[in-house]
């Protein structure tokens, strides 16, 4: 399959994520959109890695797996980030009884 299919899919997912972050007010949905963007990038990384391996690194096992391993790292870090983020959202909910980010403008002024 040509690489361009992967790129188009990734860009589409990424744009959905951006639009979601920009338009939604619910913190959890914003969070999900962020994850979507993150995974779009992951997908692109894996796709490029595969392409790279096919073009240059045939027979070199380390080159083949480098980017794939990177993606695992990203997922781990993302999982940690999500847990912190969710904890924050829980705390926000406890304080404001809402997860609407537009209420969170009290730091202004």
């Amino acid at each position: 399959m040509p690489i361009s299919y992967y790129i188009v899919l990734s860009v589409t997912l990424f744009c959905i994520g951006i639009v979601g972050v920009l338009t939604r007010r619910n913190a959890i949905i914003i969070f999900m959109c962020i994850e979507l963007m993150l995974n779009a990038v992951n997908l692109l990384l894996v796709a490029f890695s595969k392409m790279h391996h096919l073009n240059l690194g045939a027979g070199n096992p380390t080159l083949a797996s480098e980017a794939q391993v990177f993606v695992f790292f990203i997922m781990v870090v993302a999982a940690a980030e999500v847990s912190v983020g969710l904890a924050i959202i829980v705390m926000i909910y406890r304080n404001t009884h809402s997860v609407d980010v537009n209420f969170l403008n009290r730091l202004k002024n």
Partner: protein
Amino acid sequence: MNNTLQIVWLIPFLPLIGFLINGLFRKQLSKSLVGIIGSGVILAAFILSVYVFLQVKGGNTHLAHYFNFINTTSLKVGFDFQIDQLSSLFLLIITGVGFLIHVYSTSYMHEEESKDFAKYFAYLNLFVFSMLLLVMGGNYIIMFIGWEGVGLCSYLLIGYWFKNNEYTDAAKKAFIMNRIGDLGFLLAVFWLLNKVGTVNYQDVFANVDKLTPTDITGITLLLFVGATGKSAQIPLYTWLPDAMAGPTPVSALIHAATMVTAGIYMIARSNILFTMAELTQTVIAVVGLATAILAATIALKQNDIKKVLAYSTVSQLGYMFLGLGVGAYTGAVFHVMTHAFFKALLFLGAGSVIHAMSGEQDMRNMGGLKKHMSITHITFLMGCIAIAGIPPFSGFFSKDEILAGAFAKNPLYWGIGVLGALMTAFYMFRLYAMTFLGKFRGTHEQEHHLHESPSAITIPLIVLAILAVTGGFVGIPEVFAHGAHKLGAFLDPVFADTNKYVAAHAHTEHLSHSTEYMLMGISVAGALAALIFAWNKFSKYQKSDTEETGIGKVLANKWYVDELYDAVIVKPRNSIAAFLNNIVERKGVDGIVNGVGKAVNYGSRQIRLLQSGQVGGYVLLMVVGMLVLFIIKFFL
């Protein structure tokens, strides 16, 4: 260095001690103690001066070195005192006349409060100290210290009654005018240092040959600028008449007998430099003559008794400069001496009159004081005759010597000088007649109060009158008796270089005896005629309210010189200052500073609105920013 003259440091030191005691303990000391300390130190200095004078007369001159005042590798200025004929003569004048004026002041200033009285004496002592430093200094730097010191004391004493704004203005005027002159002096000293590398009189005078004519002319002209400030010559003379704001003894001491002669002393001291600068000599002679005439014409129409004397001082100083300009150094110094006697006498006499008149200074309200104040009257008359130049009073000898010198140089100088001398006789006897003759024109209260002054005032008057009458006999001209010019013989070593130079270069022929007799005859006859005319005209003076017209008005207003200076110098400077203040400073510099502040303030207020707190807004901006970066990266 075991010279008996090594002790001369005591002479200025004593007045300094007096200044410190009177100045520091002015609240504790009683008036009589202040008077005793103030006059006592001057008396002691006078006695020492007499001793020094006798030593010098015996041929013992001395250059005392005490310590290094400035000590660098390239420049060494010692704290030196030079005691020779010229300085010892000035020492006598300063301490002698100074002592009499101190004694006089103890009575004249008696109505002041105790601490003000002590302040006054402290200033007087400081003044004498500075003046002594000036004449004793062995180089131009030490002279400059004294030079500045007398300027400062003059300021302090003119503004002694500092609660009166007019008086403080007069004090400031004196100080500023002096400063302008001082700048010239200072520049001359720098020039000397640059070219000769030393400021010691002896080294400078020994090295004059190394200076180019341009250097000498420049240096002497700058020194002369200094002298015009201190000695009240055109164009810097206007401070002296205003300086009459000070107490009368101050006028006598500073503005007649000592400080104003500093310029004469300085030029006489540097005589060899000036002799070699022909251009400067001409400038000095012309400026001196112009000042003499200008001030004499102004004095004709003044009604304030002290103002007349002030302008007559300016005029007499003009004669001294004429003498210096034509190379008659001995005559100029001689006139300094006789002038110190009779002008101090006249000022003190005027002070006695003002004292009796309860502060009145307008001669139109005086008259007929002859019968009330016999001692003041007699002594004042002596002073008037002396200044008018009637033989055998002292003024005749000194003025005649200057005029004879002027005639030898240029008969025109002599003609104008004699004209000035006639005016001198006229205004002095106008002053005398308006004050002492005729009927009393003041109020009844004043008439009732009229009295002769106490002895502390009259004794100095009598002593000064004796000096004014007899002082001239130390300088009897050659024509009367050979070798009778004792002062000339005494001062000869000081002017030795000059005489040698003149003998080698100039070709002025000596005046024949008959010419000299004729010159004297003309000036004396003229002075007598002016005297009698003034006597007749003003002895029956009546007060009249008619305004002066024509030339009289111009003279009464002092040729409008103050107004001219105001229009030419003060006003333009004020408007430049106002322009700089309003436009450059307020609008320009302040505008830039305030503008930056305002721009930052305004800008940040606008940018602050972006900080809305809306998360969506931030994200949107972030995305937009990223897009912009993409576009720049890929398409531009």
